[in-house]
């Protein structure tokens, strides 16, 4: 799996959160937020991580940035284990790996102006000060398409699109190589969305950035990603190049998820199979496939045994015992 090009390698990542209760506050059960997830991202490319709320996609994003510690598994950044302080110091790693949040505004200190918000990482890492800091901030603001004069303003005076761009400028301050975008487009209005999407693509090209793009919006993921990984209740169920997954699905959940997205063209209205039931709780999940209770293709084996993610076609991974295959084109 190791390849010189692979900038991020995730191996068997597990994160269980305790549910505390009882007299001594001992864990009574465990939320299996992320269960045995593995993937790699090549330098300069984008992996889109999709799934419904509570599927563990945000937890994966935080684990990959070492913002929380895993229960098990490893993450390698440029072949160094990020959880091993001897191999990868936390401060150095922070310079290389950054995050863009869904709601930039709530990640700002509202008493600080744009200049101190964008410049803060540079100050913390002792990389710039005084006049140089001002110049660097102005340059960063220009990079994200904002006027440098905005530096004197405070977050509440900015529009939603500007706030998101200020957030992106701050993420870029340390010249990172890898950025996790956790629903960076979702809170924006349609007319503003395109501006931020174009910006993220331009920046990727300009700085050869690698993205882990987390979103529930399959349209946006399709536009931005080279690969798509689908998660369901803590498990990765399918992973393939974007074009491939829109042409062929090898997991029934991916099929249900992608066909549930309404098509933005009234000429293409069609009857569709609707997935019944709801997402099960990730608290102490039963053995077997987690999609089993909602799956039309479920067999006896699916209830007892947990399917592993295997390469079913070149570069196309799926975790399903059934010989599921759908190649109806999804537009």
């Amino acid at each position: 799996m190791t390849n010189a090009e692979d900038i991020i390698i995730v191996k068997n990542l597990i994160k269980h959160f305790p549910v505390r209760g009882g007299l001594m506050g001992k864990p009574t059960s465990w939320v299996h937020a992320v269960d045995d997830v593995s993937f790699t991202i090549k330098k300069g490319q984008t992996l889109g991580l999709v799934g419904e709320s509570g599927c563990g996609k945000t937890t994966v994003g935080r684990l990959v940035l070492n913002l929380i510690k895993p229960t098990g598994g490893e993450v390698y950044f440029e072949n160094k284990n990020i959880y091993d302080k001897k191999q990868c110091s936390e401060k150095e790693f922070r310079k290389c790996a950054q995050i863009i949040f869904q709601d930039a505004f709530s990640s700002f200190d509202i008493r600080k102006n744009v200049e101190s918000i964008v410049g803060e990482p540079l100050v913390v890492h002792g990389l710039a000060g005084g006049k140089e800091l001002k110049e660097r901030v102005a340059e960063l603001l220009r990079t994200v398409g904002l006027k440098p004069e905005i530096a004197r303003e405070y977050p509440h005076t900015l529009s939603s699109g500007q706030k998101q761009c200020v957030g992106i400028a701050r993420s870029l301050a340390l010249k990172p190589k890898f950025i996790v975008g956790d629903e960076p487009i979702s809170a924006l209005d349609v007319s503003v969305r395109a501006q931020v999407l174009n910006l993220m693509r331009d920046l990727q090209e300009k700085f050869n950035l690698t993205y882990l793009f987390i979103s529930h919006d399959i349209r946006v993921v399709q536009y931005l990603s080279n690969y798509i990984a689908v998660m369901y209740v803590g498990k990765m169920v399918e992973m393939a190049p974007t074009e491939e997954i829109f042409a062929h699905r090898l997991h029934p959940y991916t099929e249900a998820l992608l066909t549930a997205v309404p098509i933005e063209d009234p000429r293409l209205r069609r009857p569709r199979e609707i997935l019944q039931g709801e997402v099960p709780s990730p608290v102490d999940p039963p053995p077997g496939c987690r999609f089993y209770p909602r799956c039309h293709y479920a067999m006896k084996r699916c209830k007892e045994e947990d399917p592993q993610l295997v390469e079913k076609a070149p570069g196309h991974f799926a975790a399903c015992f059934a010989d599921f295959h759908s190649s109806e084109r999804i537009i």
Partner: protein
Amino acid sequence: MSPSQVEAVQQRDTVLSVKNLVTHFFIREGEVHAVDGVNLHVEKGETLAIVGESGCGKSVTALSMLRLIASPPGKVLSGNVIFQGQDLLHMKQSQLRKIRGKGIALILQEPMSSLNPSWTIGRQIMEAIELNQGIKGKEAKEKAIEMLKLVRIPAAESRFNNYPHELSGGMKQRVMIAMALACRPQILIADEPTASLDVTIQAQIMELMKQLKREIGTTVILITHDLGVVAEMADRVTIMYAGQVVETADVFSIFHNPAHPYTRGIVRTIMDLKDKNHRLEVIPGDPPNLLNPPPGCRFNPRCAFAKEICREKDPDYKRVKGSDGRWVRCHFPLI
């Protein structure tokens, strides 16, 4: 708009029409022009989508129609909302109360904030039935369970005794729909009914609404920002921008032959996402601050087609010549 134009908006089977609705909010910073001269009509049995970005006035329009705007700070300054030959904006509260629920029902985006957390869902549906249909006790309970079954809630009899917190988001939205439909309303206004739900649950609710429409024949006003939902559900579409209606047309024209540059812009940004190699076309800038809307056409600072007159004169909302029921607010429509 001249009186003759207003007449023309009304068609034979119009069940609700809104004329020159103006709702402003008076806050410390000044006067917010949230809804500024909205005209629309709804035909019997159709689904009309009111579409726009956050803050465009689509929800305020719906709330104004039922006189549910908190005052202060809000105030409906002028306009008419004609339903069954009566003006909802100029009738007694007691009369209006008979229309709310029974004539026009409303479901909101966030079901948790509309449901009473300390009552079982069954009792809440029963309340709606008892108030509007004059039946009580066991009969009302049977009816409530029937409504829960109608919206496909599994094990309806036992769910009847559940409290809202025991239900998932999708289930709560079903309960809201059951409550709204319990009164057999002529018009159902659904304000972002699926915005807080996951896609697979959204698909379930959309399918449910379509089925119920076929079974009951309710007229639906669907308020949303999601063009996918619009393409899937709507017969006609009214597009709002900065407190005004900028275009109304059938759903096919909106997506394939839009008349207003703003409509074209938002449709393009969505459709272009399909093609990875294509750079997205951008509507520059942001929607205006409605405390101080720009002079002339409100879209002019962001419009690629704007000319001198667009900066000076606010265009009238008028019928597109030679069209079948298409309306646009633009000096230079694209069709």
